[in-house]
């Protein structure tokens, strides 16, 4: 004992234990993590998921867009010469002489009989520049005069396999291989040996040259020289994903603070013991920070492994949908590295706060397991209130969507952080509420107030989840409720609109397919439309007439009228069951859009070339305050005739009407096969069809976000309530000993969950509304006026209800803490 250690290193005499002390403390933290990692499972899981999702997200975001400069290969210049050049061979020879090494690719369009074209392509597979644009899938490259290798889409178009004989333009080719362009998998082409294209439509020459030498060379007429664009897409998708990941990590950090606070509370006596043994404050902090670091590192490693495995598994699917080959290892390593470091830093930073709090507790108090007394409420409330106010001001003066995105970000972050700082204050308010409640509820609320550090962090996390949900909800609802800029599903699933050539409202006049070069007569088009209707087995066809007129709201730019305006022909009125007598005399427009008739400052814009007028052209004719009548009989889809101009207005304004399309309706929802057949038929005459879009509508988005936010908030709630209640296991034992049964236990857990859920829902919703009001302060009426009642009820009533009921149900079983008090 006193004799066992006489010597003491001189270096340690003045210091505070140095490296050996830190090592001992970290060793203990590591042992504790090994013993108690299950209690930190949720933080571990959240961090791991965040890292995995970030890796997958950046990988997809980076690899989904097509290659930046397809067609260049490795060359820095691309020269295309039309096949009509009379001195083609001489020109190529001249270019070769001037620039040395060149790679010549000859293309010839060939007819396929379908909307998709195909090309005969002569290229040297081992050419100096074009190699990245060609790879062999099966068989071999063509070498001889009559050999060809097909891309998979060409092979399927012509229904050919290796070894088959292919007759094209009077020549017979033997299929010797399957090839692809890794940069564009969907290209339909037939590769032949160089020089085998008899009449190229276009010749592409790849070469390396300096800017000056290109400028001084005289290229043949009609030639087009290109250099690769060097600017990557802006903003870099990896940065966007990383920014979102950072926001997510902030949220996870809040949950982690709650988790680590509970962990610190659990170890309070041990940490006090460490202090009594002579550990410095720094060493005590190090225990918790090391624990945070271990959690962060483990979660990050697990997340990275899961993310990479998921990515490797997903690459083949992504290649198919993106249409180009993907190098699975071509990842934004810097972004992934940053995300991993950020995850670890999040865990460490989250552990620092409880670490500092614990180190401040006097050793005597820590030894007896008493947490530090919560700080005075008014001191905590002020910074939060100031931040919310400042954030709201920044948002209000940020200038809307046209303003600075930096201001938006700063304002949003300030408001959010400020609101979350208010969480402990709200918790303190619970004490007042609970004073007259029954004992079990009072006990639950008092525990929340007493352990404000962790319940505050828990509340902040729940509020944050609700905040995100509410923001999406409010904005989506406001967007959905805009009568001018209608959003929603475009068409019901049993409707199809057949647009004649040049009349697709989405893409405008559209270059026709190969067969559409010759203008089809209206009769031919109508015949094709009849064929489509016949193939769908329906006679329910409504011809839609278009007029060069539309609605607009004066003085606004944001809320322009969207959608096509058709003519209320007698046939249309009959189709929707509107009697001419129902239309008030003098009415200009009929609409199914709710609220459109009440919009102020409406105008009719009209003119013969309303839609073809360029930006500098003359202004359209205007009629102010048209008379609009609402008919719910009209279809509501955005591509449906939801707003129609009356014959009366047409006559008054002396407008012509022209064929706009046909609305075809079937008894049952259209199948994918029917839609494909119809599309094929439409393509034949250069027409287009529109059916229900598979993209989620804003309403669906709102419902999903509400559900997802609720689930997220519930998950956080379950975790934090579990944590908080598991901490009071010994108190529960005392309660049980005094005769409290499972009902008391259930009530306590239920009240804890319910109180946290209600506060979280209220706080999150309040911040969301503050943010929205500040942001849209100019157009309050149309934005915040439309309250997403359903979502609000779901969140403010549903969440606490589910939380309470869940707490009540799951608290029935005795927690193992009670059965076996763990040794500390």
């Amino acid at each position: 004992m006193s004799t066992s250690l006489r010597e003491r290193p001189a270096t340690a005499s003045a210091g505070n234990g140095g490296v050996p002390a830190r090592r001992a403390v970290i060793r203990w933290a590591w042992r504790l993590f090994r013993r108690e990692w299950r209690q930190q499972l949720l933080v571990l899981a959240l961090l791991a998921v965040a890292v995995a999702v970030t890796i997958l997200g950046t990988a997809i975001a980076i690899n989904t867009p097509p290659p930046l400069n397809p067609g260049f290969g490795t060359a820095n210049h691309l020269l295309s010469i039309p096949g009509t050049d009379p001195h083609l061979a001489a020109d190529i020879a001249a270019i070769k002489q001037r620039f040395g090494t060149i790679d010549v690719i000859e293309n010839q369009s060939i007819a396929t009989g379908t909307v998709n074209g195909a090309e005969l392509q002569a290229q040297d597979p081992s050419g100096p520049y074009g190699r990245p644009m060609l790879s062999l899938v099966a068989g071999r490259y063509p070498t001889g005069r009559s050999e060809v290798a097909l891309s998979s889409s060409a092979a399927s178009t012509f229904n050919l396999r290796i070894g088959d004989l292919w007759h094209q333009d009077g020549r017979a080719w033997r299929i010797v291989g399957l090839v692809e362009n890794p940069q564009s998998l969907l290209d339909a082409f037939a590769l032949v040996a160089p020089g085998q294209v008899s009449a190229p439509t276009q010749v592409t020459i790849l070469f390396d040259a300096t800017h000056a030498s290109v400028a001084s060379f005289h290229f043949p007429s009609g030639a087009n020289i290109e250099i690769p664009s060097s600017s990557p897409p802006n903003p870099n998708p990896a940065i966007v994903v990383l920014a979102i990941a950072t926001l997510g990590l902030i949220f996870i950090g809040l949950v982690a603070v709650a988790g680590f606070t509970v962990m610190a509370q659990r170890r309070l006596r041990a940490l006090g013991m460490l202090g009594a043994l002579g550990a410095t404050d720094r060493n005590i902090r190090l225990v918790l920070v090391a624990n945070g670091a271990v959690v962060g590192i483990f979660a990050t490693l697990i997340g990275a492994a899961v993310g990479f495995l998921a990515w490797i598994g997903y690459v083949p699917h992504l290649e198919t949908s993106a249409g180009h080959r993907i190098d699975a290892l071509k990842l934004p390593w810097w972004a992934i590295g940053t995300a991993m470091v950020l995850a670890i830093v999040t865990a460490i930073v989250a552990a620092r706060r409880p670490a500092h709090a614990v180190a401040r507790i006097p050793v005597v108090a820590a030894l007896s397991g008493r947490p530090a007394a919560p700080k005075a409420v008014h001191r905590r409330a002020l910074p939060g209130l100031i931040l919310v106010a400042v954030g709201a001001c920044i948002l209000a003066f940020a200038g809307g969507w046209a303003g600075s995105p930096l201001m938006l970000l700063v304002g949003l972050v300030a408001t959010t952080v400020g609101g979350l700082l208010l969480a402990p204050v709200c918790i303190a308010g619970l004490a007042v509420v609970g004073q007259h409640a029954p004992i079990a509820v009072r006990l639950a609320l008092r525990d929340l107030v007493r352990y404000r550090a962790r319940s505050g962090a828990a509340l902040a996390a729940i509020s944050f989840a609700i905040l995100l949900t509410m923001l999406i909800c409010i904005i989506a609802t406001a967007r959905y409720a805009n009568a001018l800029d209608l959003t929603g599903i475009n068409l019901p699933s049993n409707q199809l609109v057949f647009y004649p050539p040049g009349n697709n409202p989405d893409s405008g006049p559209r270059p026709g397919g190969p067969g559409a070069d010759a203008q089809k007569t209206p009769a031919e088009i109508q015949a094709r439309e009849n064929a489509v209707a016949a193939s769908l087995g329906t006679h329910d066809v409504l011809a839609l007439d278009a007029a060069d007129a539309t609605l607009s709201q004066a003085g606004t730019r944001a809320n322009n009228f969207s959608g096509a305006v058709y003519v209320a022909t007698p046939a249309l009125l009959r189709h929707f069951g509107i009697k001419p007598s129902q239309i008030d005399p003098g009415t200009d427009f009929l609409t199914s859009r709710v609220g459109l008739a009440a919009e102020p400052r409406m105008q009719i814009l009209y003119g013969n070339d309303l839609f073809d007028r360029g930006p500098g052209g003359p202004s359209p004719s205007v009629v102010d305050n048209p008379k609009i009548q609402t008919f719910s009989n009209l279809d509501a889809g955005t591509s449906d005739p939801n707003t129609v101009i009356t014959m009366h207005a047409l006559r008054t304004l002396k407008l012509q009407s022209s064929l706009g399309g046909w609305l075809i309706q079937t008894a049952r929802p259209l199948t994918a096969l029917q839609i494909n057949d119809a599309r094929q038929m439409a393509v034949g005459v250069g027409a287009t069809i529109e059916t229900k879009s598979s993209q989620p509508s804003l309403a669906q988005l709102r419902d999903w976000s509400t559900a997802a936010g609720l689930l997220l908030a519930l998950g956080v709630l379950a975790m934090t309530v579990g944590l908080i209640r598991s901490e009071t296991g010994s108190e529960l034992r005392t309660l049980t000993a005094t005769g409290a049964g499972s009902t008391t236990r259930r009530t306590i857990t239920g009240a804890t969950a319910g109180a946290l859920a209600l506060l979280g829902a209220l706080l999150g919703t309040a911040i969301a509304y503050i943010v929205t009001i500040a942001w849209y302060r100019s157009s309050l009426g149309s934005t915040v006026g439309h309250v997403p009642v359903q979502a609000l009820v779901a969140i403010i009533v549903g969440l606490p209800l589910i939380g309470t009921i869940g707490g009540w149900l799951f608290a029935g079983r005795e927690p193992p803490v009670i059965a076996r008090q763990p040794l500390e």
Partner: protein
Amino acid sequence: MTTLELRGVSKVYGEGPTAVHALRGIDLSVQAGALVAVMGPSGSGKSTLLTIAGSLEDPTDGEVLVGGTTLSNMSRNAKARLRRRSIGYVFQDYNLLAGLTAAENVALPLELDGIGARKARAAGMAALEELGLADRASRFPDELSGGERQRVAIARAVVGERRLLLADEPSGALDSANGDAVMRLMRTACQRGVAGVVVTHDAQLASWADRVVFLRDGRVADQTAPPPGPESLLAPSTGQGQ
């Protein structure tokens, strides 16, 4: 040599009318090699006396000297260093850190003081061996019995060159045989030159001490005279036999 000296130590918790006077002007000195017991009813301030003597709390008034050095001017870190090197604690029921073996627990104060893990472990093993606990060295606290835990705690409290051993009801939850074993270890430690202070309300524990100080309402009410030696008990009628 006086290892621990309290001079007019007072401690007041809280302020105003709700203030609690835990200690009022305590004077106490403990020589090296002496074991002093502090007895008193609950609330007499005996635990506070121990935490103040061990630098875990600061006195409201008065001075504490450990090994001749006053604690009043020490920084938090200096106090921590003092605890690592000079003061050993044994608490009633909670002493060992879960997750560390008995040997690691004993070696912990040395490691915290900057001594390499291997060397500290060897010193810890030596301390355990001296207390007859060598076979428990690689056990974790939850694999030890209550008495063994307290004995390991004493080994940790005296490892290194500790001069002051402070114990708060060290056999609180133990049966009398285990309690005796704990007190026997404390006596052994004191015989090697450590100054010991045991706070207890149990006269049987206190009777192991060289001197018993009685605390009452935060004041030293009384203390025992130096013991006359065991012969006096047996003297009257055993003269010839012995």
